[in-house]
């Protein structure tokens, strides 16, 4: 027994066992630390969900007009005040703000934890087809934010003289792109 413990020969196996174990641990550790392997970024999934929700909300708020009474136009009394159409028609160029009914409906459909920025884009045909834009809800998005959009058609009679779209088209329908940028706080 004494001989056994005092013997200094042939510790190679123990040493190599330790080396081997260390090697394995180091390799595993390195793998876990490297972002390549455990990659799928969770936020990517959150973003997919958020983007889909943004499209869903825009679709729900877009209430198409089934009939259009050109003589009684802008026919605000037949536009639901929580729809995108009403929000766009009521915009006033001196202080373009979405109406509160629209904002309430939009906020109810999105979670309170989602922040948003709302912009509209349209083509000014009387000014060399330049694209003009207007920020309706001005929040500064974070880099992780996602953007969704939907094109809404406004009819000539709905573009009143107070409208920011006034003068962009010559008595023809206007395509307005509503862009919503969403992110979690």
């Amino acid at each position, binding site marked *: 027994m004494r001989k056994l413990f005092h*013997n200094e020969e042939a510790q190679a196996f123990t040493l190599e066992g330790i080396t*081997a174990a260390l090697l394995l641990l180091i390799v595993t550790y390195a793998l876990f630390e490297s972002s390549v392997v455990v990659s799928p970024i969770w936020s990517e999934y959150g973003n997919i969900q958020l983007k889909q929700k943004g499209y869903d909300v825009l*679709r*729900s708020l877009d209430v198409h*007009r089934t009939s259009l009474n050109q003589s009684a136009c802008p026919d605000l009394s037949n536009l639901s005040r929580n729809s995108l159409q009403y929000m766009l028609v009521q915009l006033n160029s001196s202080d373009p703000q979405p109406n509160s*009914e629209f904002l309430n*409906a939009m906020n109810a459909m999105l979670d309170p934890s989602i922040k948003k920025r709302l912009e509209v884009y349209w083509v000014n045909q009387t000014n060399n087809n330049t694209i003009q834009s207007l920020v309706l809800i001005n929040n500064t998005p974070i880099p992780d934010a996602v953007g969704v959009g939907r094109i809404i058609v406004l009819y000539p009679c709905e573009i009143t003289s107070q409208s920011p779209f006034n003068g962009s088209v010559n008595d023809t329908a206007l395509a307005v792109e509503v862009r919503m940028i969403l992110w979690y706080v």
Partner: protein
Amino acid sequence: MVVKEEKGRLSLDMLIGLSIFLFSFIFIGQFLPSVFADTRSEISVFSEAYKVSVLLVEDPGRWINLDSPDEKGFHWENEWYKNNISYRPGLARVGRPGFICLQKLVEFKNATFTNQMTYEDDSWVRDVFGLNTPDRTYHVNITLLKPQSTAYSPYYSKDKYGNVVLAIGPPIPNKKVSRYERVINLPAASDFLNVTKTNPSNENYEVNTTFPLGGALIVIRESINPSAACWVQIKVELENTTSNNILFETIYDLNLTTCNDPSIFGIYPLTSQLNEAYEDLYEEFIDTYNEIPDTNEITLRIKNLNCSVGLSQVGEILGDFETDVEARIVAKLVVTVWEG
């Protein structure tokens, strides 16, 4: 060679070395898959939830007659209970993704019930949406919620008789689940709406309701007599019927001596005003009377106007629910999937 060694000490050395190696090898072997399995299952569960939500919300479903394969189509809701029919449900209207067909919704519930005799068993739903894979079992829960719901406080969409519109699957467990939420459009069907229409000989209307409301909308169409006075007054009233304590708040007040201004006509949503008024009143009620109210009422005073008030426990109402085919009720369809 080792075995032939005459001195036994070497085998002890070998033993130590080998056991250190094996120990770490086994440790890593055990540890590694569990870490990967975690991310992997999250990812697969998430895409399963996404898949189910898309099949339900964006697709009308399919059916085919196995005896004569030429008979097939999207309207499985009329066929599923017949013999030799193979079908996969979907809830969307044909050619209109995101818009739910009422009949499909009803038949989806019926099919679940017919197959399992309860809405709490998801085995048929799992089967039909391909959630039974050889190496994994999933569970799925599908519910329709009011838009005000969050992950922590769900409010079930209920029709005007108080029945939950859609809740299928076992209760969601208290562990890691994947929740996929879709904002969907339902038709403004009469079952989903409690409509109060004005009647020229009446002026006062009372509606008992529960809060939070999914949606509330008033459509003011025209005045009955443009030269006479007209008004609309909407109040939320909370009462304790034992002590008769009452508290109310007016959320909409329009009062005109002559009713000839067309700008008052329109479609006004009232959802958030009503819900906020209720929350304020509820707290105030407890503070003032030291008791909780047991009746919630919305009182309407409407004179000389042709209008309709729609209250919904399903979701937000958009558009004239009585005349417009594009009118809709917006709710959340939530698909929750977990492994186990």
